């Protein structure tokens, strides 16, 4: 019996398909559950000895060697331990390489082309006529003027607190557009504005944004660069710093914009405790409940991006929001068609015709 098993066993090593390279898969063919342990050793052709790399999985009978160098040839030795014998098999030479295209992700490519197509199309339209593209007004936007006005009446400064994300985050870019609107109002009303930053690059961008807004309303002399504050790149250090500043400066209005993590409630609670009117906006879904609990107005998720597009009418942002709107419409229609298709396929399947059901299952597998 064991002799038959040994005769039927073979081991193969091949470049792991559809990956970025650096990986070789070793597979034992012909095993049926009798394996006790399987050790994989590797020789890089330049060495004289085999180095232990890992263990063969006892469920898939495979081992994936992720430590291979692309283009370099390797030999593999596999030691298979059974209850009463040990078998050694060799395979190779084999080398790893990166694939340019992963056919299992074709669905991603198709959807990406459709969605990018919507965005690019609307950016073009926005460039031609930005006023021609309709974006509904977000209620929290009116609150910006109200908050700055109230702060001015009380003779208190306005705080703009950036989130913890860098300049690459869409939420940060939207926050900068909102900062520009806030800065214009603050400059107009001649109220002090303090901007706290977690990221040094965001700080540089904030400084430029505020300066430009002051210049646009002809109040550049009132711009104080020292009020654009960099604190630290440490989450709770930043939180402690912002809290301290809020307590000492006693702002009348606080804007919390960008991507926040666990510090969201601590910041919002401190703002609430000093009696400031608070407007928050974040794409961090896990932190939105805290802002909703502790702030006066909240821009929920994508509303932050839509709000900044509404204010700025900047073609790229406007086109992106419109494009993603049509992406959402596409998804809704897709889900609706999917439900109708699945229902018809089920009815036909009950009546004995399984063609549509098979097509539906194949499509869902491809997706």
């Amino acid at each position, binding site marked *: 019996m064991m002799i038959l098993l040994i005769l039927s066993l073979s081991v193969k090593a091949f470049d792991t398909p559809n990956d970025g390279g650096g990986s070789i898969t070793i597979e034992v063919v012909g095993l049926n559950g009798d394996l006790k342990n399987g050790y994989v050793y590797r020789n890089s052709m330049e060495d004289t000895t085999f180095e232990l790399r890992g263990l063969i999985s006892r469920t898939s009978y495979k081992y994936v060697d992720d430590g291979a160098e692309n283009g370099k040839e390797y030999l593999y030795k596999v030691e298979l331990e059974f209850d009463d014998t040990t078998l050694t098999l060799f395979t190779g030479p084999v080398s790893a390489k990166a694939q340019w295209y992963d056919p299992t*992700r074709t*669905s*991603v490519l198709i*959807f*990406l082309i459709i969605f990018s197509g919507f965005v690019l199309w609307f950016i073009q339209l926005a460039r031609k006529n930005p006023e021609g593209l*309709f*974006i*509904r007004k977000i209620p929290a936007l009116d609150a910006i003027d109200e908050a700055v006005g109230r702060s001015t009446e009380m003779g208190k400064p306005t705080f703009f607190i950036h989130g913890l994300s*860098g*300049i*690459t985050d869409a939420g940060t870019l939207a926050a900068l557009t909102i900062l520009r609107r806030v800065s214009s109002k603050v400059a107009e009303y001649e109220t002090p504005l303090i901007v706290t930053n977690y990221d040094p*690059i965001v700080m*540089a961008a904030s400084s430029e944004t505020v300066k430009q807004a002051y210049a646009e309303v002809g109040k550049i002399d009132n711009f104080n660069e020292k009020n654009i504050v960099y*604190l*630290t*790149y*440490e989450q*709770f*250090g*930043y939180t*402690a*710093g912002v*809290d*301290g500043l809020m*307590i*000492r400066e006693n702002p009348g209005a606080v804007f919390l914009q960008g991507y926040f993590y*666990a510090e969201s*409630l601590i910041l919002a609670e401190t703002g609430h405790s000093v009696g400031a009117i608070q407007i928050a906006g974040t794409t961090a*879904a*896990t932190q*939105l*409940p*805290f802002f*909703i*609990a502790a702030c006066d107005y909240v821009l*929920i*998720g*994508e*509303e932050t991006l*839509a709000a900044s597009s509404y204010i700025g009418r900047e073609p790229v942002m406007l086109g992106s*929001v*419109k494009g993603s*709107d*049509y992406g*959402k*419409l596409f*998804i*809704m229609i*897709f*889900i*609706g068609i*999917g*439900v109708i298709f*699945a*229902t018809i396929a*089920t009815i036909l*399947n009950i009546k004995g015709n399984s063609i549509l059901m098979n097509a539906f299952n194949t499509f*869902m597998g491809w*997706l």
Partner: protein
Amino acid sequence: MNISTDIWVWIAALLTLFIYSFLYKDNPFYKFAEHLFIGIGVGYTTVLLWFNSVIPKLWNPLVHGTSPMRFFLIIPILIGALMFSIFSKKNNWLIRIPIAIYIGAGSGLAIPLDFEGLIFEQVKGTILTKSMFNSFIVGFSSIVLFIGVIATLVYFYFSKEHKGFVGKTARVGIFYIMIAFGASFGYTVMARVSLLIGRMQFLLHNWLGIIK
């Protein structure tokens, strides 16, 4: 009572109390802890970046490596160095180059993953199929999910005013969002309470030795 004799436990305990003193009001102890925290944060991040990124990913391969490909590392060094152009009033526009590369690479990596991990899975999970109705609870939940996904998507559709049918559907969507936020709030508060318990355990067990 078995008070700790470890100086670092004392420092950590006192700094914890300094930070908690903010709950009463702003005071010099809190200010001290706050400034110390910010200073250490800046220093720690700088050292971390130096030893986890610059030395192993740049310096070691470039200086101690043997592969001729290592000289390609000079390209990202030069691109990264353009970040410092922010200090030049004349050439600060150059900072757009590394930022554009950073945003492009980040989006290129994140968008396909979001499609696969979030959008496709959500769409597949929302399409009602016969197998979902094998059990009453799963079938009912699937219908609730289907309505929720569509209504929430309508709420975040900005190209139409929230009036008439769209407005009513969006209203259903905001109900779903608020229910989700309520659940998330409760869940996270529980997690935060466990953090507070951890700190109390540190103070009462590690520092004062009152509890076992």
